[in-house]
Each structure stands twice: as C-alpha cells, then as structure tokens.
C-alpha cells in the first residue's frame, strides 16, 4: 500500500552522519554493496563492469564538496548519502503499484521487488537521488537500512547495525531510533545541531547530518623550532644518532 502509514511509527530508525569526521574513504559504500548484494534486495547488479562504460547499483555514495568562504578559507567536506527514510516519503505515495512502502513498525522505506513494475516514477519523486534502478531485474532498489542485518538473530547483538555503520573506520556513522528523544543518536543530534537535507522539499527525512565543526582560526604563527634531541653532554650513541638523523 503506497499511502503512508496512517499512524506514523513512534520508532524511526535511521542514520546520523557526522560530516566533521567523515574522511571520504568510501569504505561504507563498499561494505554496503558487499552486504546488500547478498541481502534483501540482492543482487546489486553491475552492467559492463570491466568494459568501457561500467555502471551499477549502489545504495550509498560518497560525494565530496568544496565550501568556499573568503573569510575562513575553503574547506573540503566529504558527504555520504543514502536513503534518508523520510517521514513524508514522496517516493512512497507516487508509486502506482504499492511496491514502494514505509514500514509502520520502524519507518524503514522499502521496495517490494515482486510488485514493482519498474516505472521509475519513485526515482523522479525522491529529491535526494536515493533510488537505484536495476536494469537487469527491471525493478527499483534502494537502501534497506540493512533490514536483514539489524534484526538478524543469527548475528551477535553488537553486529546488528547497518553494514555502512559497522565498517566506518572513523565512526562517522551512527544508527539508532531517531523517534526516541532519549536515544543516543537523538542526543547526539541535539548536542551537535544535526540538520535535515533540503527541508524545503518537505519530505521530513529521518536521517540527520552533523555539521563540520568550525575551523580554528588565528593560529598563523610558524611552527616552533625543533629542539635538537641531544646536546654535547649526551652519550656517544645519542650523539651518533643525532648526527646520523640530521645529516
């Protein structure tokens, strides 16, 4: 059913992405592909993978932006983006078949691949570009919030988080219930002034982004002179090492 749930779920599972920490290594995108090509929406088809025009299905992509500012100088911000599991998801309501739906119990937005006719309308309706058409299967696919991992009883408790979250080497991604104001993720969002992408599109995304911390300015002094590691009173070996290193 492609009407949104009449009683919106209290539980809103989603991601919090810290743009201050992300180093743009693409590890989350790779592990997303790795997990999901065997998961709920498998496979994540690649077409012409070794040819001249390779293209494929990815649920998570890392963009890098340059932010220019005359006063504070430029900065580079790495920007991972996957489905934001919106509260008012237009990709759900436009779907003519009922294949696209939002789960009542936790707010996850999914596609039923057995009902999708591949009309692509949902990908037009999503302002964020979070839907991926699989040419091979003829159906729409998208980030599942790793629904087959986060509830998987065969996995140890601590592994029941999305693949992109568990793989991030710097901990830039957090997962949790953003509908509960007392959850760790909600507290993090409150503390760091997490925000919505394109609020003017009125999709009410669940995922939140944490802004980069302000740059430390006014520290233009040259780095202090390096002090020699050893002076003449040092022992023979220390002086020898010093001589060797400063040669």
């Amino acid at each position, binding site marked *: 059913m492609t009407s949104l749930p009449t009683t919106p779920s209290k539980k809103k599972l989603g991601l919090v992405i810290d743009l201050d920490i992300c180093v743009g290594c693409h590890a989350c995108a790779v592990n997303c592909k790795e997990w999901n090509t065997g998961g709920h929406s498998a496979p994540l088809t690649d077409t012409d993978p070794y040819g001249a025009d390779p293209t494929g299905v990815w649920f998570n992509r890392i963009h890098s932006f340059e932010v220019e500012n005359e006063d504070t100088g430029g900065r580079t911000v790495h920007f991972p983006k996957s489905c934001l599991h919106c509260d008012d998801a237009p990709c759900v309501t436009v*779907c003519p*078949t009922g294949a696209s739906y939002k789960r009542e119990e936790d707010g996850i937005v999914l596609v039923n691949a057995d009902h999708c*006719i591949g009309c692509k*309308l949902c990908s037009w309706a999503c*302002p964020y570009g979070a839907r991926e058409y699989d*040419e091979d299967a003829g159906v729409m696919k998208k980030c599942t919030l790793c629904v087959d991992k986060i509830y998987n009883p065969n996995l140890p408790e601590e592994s029941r988080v999305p693949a992109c979250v568990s793989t991030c080497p710097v901990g830039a991604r957090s997962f949790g219930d953003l509908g509960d104001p007392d959850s760790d993720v909600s507290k993090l969002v409150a503390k760091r002034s997490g925000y919505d992408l394109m609020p003017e*599109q009125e999709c009410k995304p669940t995922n939140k982004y944490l802004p980069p911390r302000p740059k430390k300015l006014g520290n233009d002094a040259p780095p202090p002179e390096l002090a020699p590691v050893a002076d003449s009173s040092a022992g023979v070996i220390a002086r020898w090492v010093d001589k060797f290193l400063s040669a």
Partner: protein
Amino acid sequence: MHPAKSVIFFTTASGAGYGLLALLIAGNIFGLIPAQFWLAFIGYAVSYVLITGGLLSSTFHLGHPERAWRALTQWRSSWLSREGVMAILTFIPTGLYALHQLFFPEMMQGIMGLLGVVGVICAIVTVYCTAMIYASLKPIHAWSNNYVPAGYLLLALMSGLLLLNSLLALWGFATASLQLVTLLVLGVALGWKITYWRFLDSSKSISTPESATGLGEFGAVKLFEAPHTEANYLMKEMGFKIARKHSAKLRLITLLAGFIAPILLIILGLFLGTVGSGVLMMLAVISAAIGLVTERWLFFAEARHTVGLYYGAPHA
C-alpha cells in the same frame, strides 16, 4: 530529465486522442457536427487508435510490463495510478456513446446524452491526471507548477480541434466558425507556451547546493569530486542536460511547427475553397504533430531535478 520516446509518444498521442474524442461527443450532443456515419466512425477510430497506441507505448518503458495491472491499485495516493484507472474508465461511457451514435441512434436518447457528458468529463480528467503525474513532482521545478496541467489540457484541446477540422474538411463539412475557434485556441496555446518558457528562464528551484548539503552557513558549495568516475542511473535519468543553443533551436521549431504554421495554414484555408482548405488542414495537423512532439521532448529535456545539485549543478 531523460526524454523517453515511449512517454513522449504516449502523452502527445493520447492527449490528441482524448481531445478529439471529447470534441466528437460534445459536437454530437449539441448537434454541431453533421450526423454522417463514416465521418463519426473514422473520427472515433482515430481517437481510440491514438489513445490505445499511446497507452500501450507507455508500458514499453516499464521494467515489468506484464505487471502493469498492478498500477491500477494505488489510486488513493498516486497520480500515475489514477491516470491508469481513468484511462480505462473513460473507455466505458465514451465507447457506449460512440456505439450508440453509430449504430443505435434512436435508442435511449436522454440517457445517452448524459453518458456522453460523463464521457467528455472522463476524457478531460484523464488528461488532467497525466499532467498531474508531472505537476506533483516537487523536486522538478519545471514541472511542479500550474502551467503544466493547463498546458496538457490546452494542447489536448488544440490537437483534437486540428484533427476534427481536418476530418470535417475531408467530408466537405469545413465550417469557418470552428476554424476560427481553432485559431483562437492555437493563439492561447502559443501564449501559454511563451509564458511557460519565460517562467522557466526567469526562475529556479528553491533548493540549492547549499540546502542540498546543509553547508551553506560555511560558504558557497561546489562539487569537488563526484562519487565515481562513470555515469550512474541517477545522472542518466535525472541529470539529462541539453545545450542552450540546442534548446533555443528546438523552441523555435516548436513555435513555428506547433503553432505559427498551423495558424497561417488555417487562415490561408479560410480564403480557399473546400478542397484547398482540406489539404491545408492536413498539412496543419502534420506540422502541429512535429511541433508538439518537439514541445514534449523539450518538456523533459529542459526539466532539472534537485538530484543534479549533488552532481555539480549550480541550481535546479
């Protein structure tokens, strides 16, 4: 947006088909079209061929055409579903009315008139639903506005009128009054198209690279590196770009072939005899068809989607 041939053909052909169908029925109800069997027969045949051809072609671009029936289920929320439902519903009153008019004109006149009115309304609502599929997509600034449904309805009426005029001319029933009405509609449609392009050229989406990333408070946002080196589905489908000089050329073709040539041909026809005006009417239909297909191609090609903001577009 990527201009898919099947969708361009579908929207232009079915629009013309519904326009002609509604005009044939309305014309018969009000006795404005001479009751001539073959004229009506060919008229209805042309409308249904255009409508059905369009509907079939719209299923060609689906990943799973065999599941197309599922698209009739979500009319509560989806304009695409509503359009499918309305397209099928419209066959009932209009089909019954056409059969009645052609084969049993004596029977149940009162009820049939009512059925005809319902049929005309259904045809209009179907075209409106088609337009709303596009007009309801907020991420696409060029589409989510009131010009779009107005234009779809106007162009359906315009192409229906052109078809009706040439049918009438072929049967030697051409009337100056209907041609004047057609001229008026062509003029209004031309004005609408120019206004729409003005709107498109002078406005842009409220979303920006700054709002898309939320980094506006730190400065001006520019793409530094795309997520990958090759094009992906999003860029091919939503990031379709058309060079300004091409779009200027195609806009000119739209204006000349779609509106100005038909206007001149009809005016010329008013001064010629029936045979001459019949030939000119056919030419006007052909010219308008070229113009309207170009118009629909541009409708897609010139539309920018907010997803472009994540791939280096300065605005959407």
